[in-house]
């Protein structure tokens, strides 16, 4: 069954609590993820889980977050509805003619730490980048049921192959830092921080440090 077919059937209001629906185990043990995600979907993810994401991601990094925060503080509507969604921290390189996008790997997540808890409060379910998140953000992920995915930093050329569509939805003047709605097909990532306090970076270091 094509995951895209099922995505069109999604209706958050009819999804029963307690059962992950948009996170399903693939035959190879890699979890298939189709946003938007529910609390139950998030609870089923554990640090270290390999995942493939299919569907919509929103890109935003430093400058876009800088514009979203004052809107949140003023109680205004954001240019994107973050409920159930995943924000991918990236600023792609320009697409060559005939290509969907240029190189599109993750940027460092910690620079967005200041902004993330407020977005999680609004219902954002996932962020994706590379590198550590602050204790404050990890606590907020546990409180609001959210996860932080790691995409492979510096693998922007490979990751571009999983992107099928790109459109700018806000702040075009920011160039690479504009908010983009991108569609991805089996985009590979790994759960770094889950909503249960699991942290892949700490676990990995504990296992291999000597």
């Amino acid at each position, binding site marked *: 069954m094509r995951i895209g077919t099922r995505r069109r059937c999604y209706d958050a209001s009819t999804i029963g609590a307690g059962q992950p629906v948009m996170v399903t185990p693939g035959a190879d043990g890699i979890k298939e993820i189709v946003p938007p995600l529910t609390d139950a979907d998030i609870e089923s993810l554990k640090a270290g889980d390999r995942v493939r994401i299919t569907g919509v991601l929103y890109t935003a990094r430093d*400058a876009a977050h800088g514009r979203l925060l004052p809107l949140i503080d003023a109680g205004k509507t954001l240019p994107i509805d973050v409920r159930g969604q995943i924000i991918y921290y*990236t*600023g*792609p*390189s*320009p*697409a*060559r003619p005939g*290509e969907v996008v*240029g*190189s*599109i*790997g993750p*940027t*460092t997540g*910690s620079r967005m730490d200041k902004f993330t808890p407020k977005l999680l409060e609004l219902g954002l379910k996932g962020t994706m980048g*590379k*590198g*550590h998140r602050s204790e404050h953000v990890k606590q907020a992920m546990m409180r609001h049921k959210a996860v932080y995915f*790691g995409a*492979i*930093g*510096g*693998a*922007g*050329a*490979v990751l*571009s*192959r999983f992107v099928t569509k790109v459109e700018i939805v806000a702040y075009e003047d*920011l*160039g*690479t*830092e504009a908010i983009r709605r991108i569609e991805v097909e089996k985009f590979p990532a*790994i759960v770094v921080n889950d909503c249960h306090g699991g942290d*892949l*970076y700490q*676990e*990995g*270091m*504990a*296992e*291999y*440090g*000597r």
Partner: protein
Amino acid sequence: MRDIHTSAITDAVKKLCMEANYALEPDMLRAFDRALVTERSAAGRQVLEILKDNAQLAVSKKIPYCQDTGFVVCFVELGQDVHVTGGLLVDAINEGVRQGYTEGYLRASIVRSPFDRVNTGDNTPAVIHLDLVEGATLKIQIMAKGGGCENRSKYKMLTPAEGIDGVKAWILECIKTAGPDACPPLIAGVGVGGTFEQAARLSKKALFRELGTPNPDAVVDALEREVLDRANRLGIGPQGYGGDTTAFGVHILTYPCHITSLPVAVTIECHAHRHKEAVL
């Protein structure tokens, strides 16, 4: 006196910028292969394999290896018997950067002021270091320096009493705190000695040495090997997912220093170590 026209400099820089971003140097590709033999972590090996695929795809599609196509750091060795004609050397380099980044579909990542943060749109200006040397050639080395790893670069003024052990501990601390944020496997470029700014400059210059080659100074070579070994026992691993390959290399350059000082600057470089050079 030998004349070199600025147009030749612009053309060379343009080409270097594009090639550096599409094609990793062979020393990096060899480092991936070496690490695949020693890496115990399955996740780590998988990351290394993906990075090899990434390098191949970048070359074949002429798509940047990393979307952060970097700040162009340019080391120029200008032979003092060279006469640059047709304009200013610095302008010629920046024009090469502008052409390379706009025509090569490379990302513009530079803002005109640290405060108003308006993107210059063409990745200019470069950071240019100029050395006047013997001879009648012009050597241009460029590095497309990523921001994520640069943000983890650090400087510390040690006391002479802290000595070589203090230097080792500081480099290790820098690698450890850079960790997953800076896209490991990392390379640490280290400048020891000189003054505050000289140490920092050397830490960048040190990164141009071919990975896997020994330091010509036996004492410094032993220091590099020890720190690299200890770094790879930290357990951070490729991308920080846990593993044995946290760093590919530690490259140190030294300079005489003041009797009161032991300056140590560490430039953190990611696996997207994009560097090229040309001699005119």
